[in-house]
């Protein structure tokens, strides 16, 4: 059936068949889940900000303890094995908020604990968050430089 080197045409023909048979992503369902879960996480953030403001923090100061609380909750629920179940359904809804970032650090840290504190947790903790940090910080520096030039 495939005795000679597979030609470009054969590859394309197969690719076409595959695209036809590939199960469709349930976009509407996924988007709704992402919208609701992402929205709820943000709403929780708003509740926290209001709570910290009521404790006497200024609006600007309150964002610090709010982030810390959300990160703690995400790490906690990752540890309990719940956050990945949420992520499976909510997709970007639970990946994009700061809780998703915390999950992406805690998950490998937990997973690679068996390889020890240095080569396991230490080396693998940023395996997913690392690229985000590298490009996030690089972009921030670039934008900062442009901002500085404009002044």
């Amino acid at each position, binding site marked *: 059936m495939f005795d000679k080197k597979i030609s470009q045409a054969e590859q394309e023909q197969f690719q076409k068949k*595959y695209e036809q048979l590939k199960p469709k992503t349930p976009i509407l369902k996924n988007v709704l889940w992402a919208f609701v879960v992402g929205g709820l996480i943000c709403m929780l953030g708003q509740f926290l900000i209001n709570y910290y403001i009521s404790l006497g923090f200024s609006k600007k100061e309150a964002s610090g303890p709010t982030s810390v609380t959300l990160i703690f909750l995400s790490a906690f629920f990752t540890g309990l094995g719940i956050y990945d179940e949420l992520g499976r359904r909510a997709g970007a809804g639970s990946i994009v908020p700061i809780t998703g970032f915390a999950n992406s650090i805690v998950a490998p840290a937990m997973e690679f604990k068996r390889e020890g504190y240095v080569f396991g947790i230490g080396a693998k903790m940023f395996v997913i968050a690392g690229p985000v940090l590298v490009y996030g910080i690089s972009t921030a520096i670039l934008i900062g430089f442009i901002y500085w030039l404009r002044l």
Partner: protein
Amino acid sequence: MNKKRGQQSIIFSSPPVITSTANIVGPMEGEGQLTEFYDKILEDTLDGNSSWEKCESKMMEWAINTAVNKDNSVLGDIDYVLAGDLLNQLMSTHFALRGIGRPFLGLYGACSTLAEGMLLASTLIDGSFGNKTIAAASSHHDAAERQYRFPTEQGVQRPMVAQWTVTGSGAVVISATGNGPRITAATVGKIVDIGLKDPNAMGPAMAPAAADTLWHHFEDCGRRPDYYDMIYTGDLGSVGKALVIELFKAKGVDLSANYEDCGCMIFKDNQDVHAGASGCASSAIVFTGYIYRLLMQQKLHRILFVGTGSLHSTTSYQQKDSIPCIAHAVAIEM
């Protein structure tokens, strides 16, 4: 006498007998469609071990020992063990075999490992190089997931075409004499790479390899698909299975009547695994459980068992390479 037939096949002159099989699975597989066909179902994916890899090793060791016990043999009767798994350097297999103490040949055929092992074991028996061999394979969902994809607690959304790696192990005792179904023919697969690059879509990538091996099997042995009661592929999943049927349809052959994929038989629809099961254990637990029992009960008389393997590595897909695949077939008759 030369036993080779055609381009890729072998017809055994004294067909070796599958005298016993054993399997062990994880909890999720245990809740699936084939619960009654498993010898042991673990309560959790660690089973008291300190890591998933160690758990996988223990599963394989248990499967090998249980298959030997069911055969009323002792480990000393086994001339060769042919086994493999999915982890780097065949970690699970090598550690499992420490306690077995028999001559061992490690195999890497990704998820085609059990079929590859049965094929080679049969040639060893038919060639009179021994009287009893074991072929075994294992995979572990969590161990495979962390090697190939993301940490298991990472909150990612899996695409619909993705398959679920099976936690389990299966072992097959193949003997020169005894009662049971016989391995009458085999077809050695060749590497087929159709150019798909998505490591989430391994079933579709393997479909051309499976179709190629099936095609050559029929051609070399002068058989048609209806010679067999059933044809089983290892872990193509629902999309890969549909693609094999399509590839045969394009050649004017209808395969849909007696063809099934082991990856579509393990989990229930409500287990949210998407396109089906995958992993060495996909074909291993279905063959050693369901298929073997149906053969022994004479509900199936002739089957073709095709192990399918996706031979990419984590390095190769990061370097944007396509996925080379393989499929090996063994014909089993009762």
